[in-house]
């Protein structure tokens, strides 16, 4: 047997007796044995399987936990980014709102210096950031506009749309009542998909499924001069206007609701105002704080 094979067999501990003897005969065998004995000193430190496994289980658990927390943090961050994005997309760009509470009027100037006066109990909303591209406001209630010349100016209301280029006009968009008066220039009113052009001194009223065109000699709406004037206007709208101007609540017979009335009332004198609406209809009134009851005279 070759020396190499012998050594290999020895290395694999598979020498038989005869081979073992042959191996002992090799001159290198003693040095191999010495080497082999010395090698035992180099044994790897013991590996404590039990203990290490416990440690591993702990590390595994930490690992399992770490993952959902990372995901949670990620989700929260994502929500914040989306929220901030939405904030910038909608709120920051967006709408400036102006309010006139009952019994007060608010004057404001739009970014192009156009003047808006809000009558009592009205709300105006417009998009500040896109004003240059789109002169457009949304209105709930009544307002007088003095629009500077420029691109198209639009007033959107629940009832209809009023477009102008540069002019003075009044828009009244109340519950079941829509009214536009033009005092200067030309306005275009879109109401129930019909377009009406109003030159200066012309007005447009819509209530109770009727539309009426009128003329006026005035250069400003009456309510800018501390009184409200009505020409053939249903009683409910006059009563509503009175409620808004004095911040009161009127109680009256429903039969009166749709009676057309021509009258006017002052804004600073409740008794006079109530007389202005009760005398023509032969009613009497009773004031209890901010509750006013209208009754027919006997």
């Amino acid at each position, binding site marked *: 047997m070759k020396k190499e094979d012998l050594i290999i067999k020895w290395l694999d501990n598979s020498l038989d007796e005869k081979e073992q003897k042959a191996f002992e005969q090799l001159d290198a065998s003693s040095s191999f044995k010495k080497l*082999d004995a010395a090698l035992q000193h*180099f044994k790897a430190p013991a*590996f404590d*399987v039990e203990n290490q496994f416990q440690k591993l289980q702990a590390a595994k658990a930490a690992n399992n936990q770490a993952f959902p927390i990372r995901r949670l943090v990620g989700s929260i961050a994502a929500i914040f980014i989306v929220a901030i994005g939405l904030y910038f997309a909608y709120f920051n760009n967006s709408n400036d709102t102006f309010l006139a509470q009952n019994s007060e009027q608010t004057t404001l100037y739009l970014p192009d210096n156009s003047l808006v006066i809000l009558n009592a109990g009205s709300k105006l909303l417009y998009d500040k950031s896109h004003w240059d591209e789109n002169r457009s406001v949304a209105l709930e209630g009544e307002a007088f506009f003095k629009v500077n010349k420029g691109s198209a100016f639009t007033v959107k209301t629940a009832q209809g749309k009023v477009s102008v280029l540069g002019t003075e006009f009044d828009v009244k968009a109340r519950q079941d009542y829509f009214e536009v008066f033009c005092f200067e220039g030309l306005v275009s009113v879109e109401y129930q998909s019909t377009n009406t052009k109003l030159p200066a001194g012309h007005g447009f009223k819509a209530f109770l499924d009727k539309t009426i065109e009128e003329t006026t000699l005035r250069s400003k709406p009456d309510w800018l001069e501390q009184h409200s004037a009505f020409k053939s206007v249903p009683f409910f709208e006059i009563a509503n206007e009175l409620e808004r101007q004095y911040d009161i609540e009127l109680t009256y017979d429903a039969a009166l609701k749709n009676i057309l009335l021509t009258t006017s009332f002052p804004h600073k004198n409740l008794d006079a105002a109530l007389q202005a609406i009760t005398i023509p209809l032969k009613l009497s009134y009773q004031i209890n704080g901010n509750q006013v009851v209208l009754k027919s005279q006997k």
Partner: protein
Amino acid sequence: MSKPLFENVCKEEIFAQIYQKWATHLHNFLYYKFGEQVNPEDKVQEAFIKLWKHCKETPIDKAKSFLFTVANNLSLNEVKHQKVVLKYQQERPQSSSPETPQFLLEEQEYLQKLQQALAQLSDGQREAFLLNRIEGKKHKEIAAILGISRKAVEKRIYTALEKLRKDIDKI
């Protein structure tokens, strides 16, 4: 729930079995190949944690090669061809007779020579040789652990032995 295509190692008891079977082998393999400076214990832990993270993609019969490959790569990244130093234990395995001081000194010298000579071996030679000589593993077992042929194991061990003998005589 869709059934996995193969039985993976995500089950705790299977994972524990794999640990019981391979952790010590893996530790010794790393120790003999890279020496103490790679912290074989840590590498074993890291390899098993990695196995746990990838438990879904790892079939049971691939777990062992996964562990050895991962641990090997982790260690390789760390050592970058440093000299491998294996510590020898100072305390002697129990001996019956008291030794002469001269013998002890000679033995000390011999161990130092052996330490240097072991450092001279290639990683492949050292791991196979020490698994065989110290852990008493059969060539066949080593072949299975290292994923090489039995012939290659024999070759590595034999060359390692010859090289050690020559180096020690020379030093």
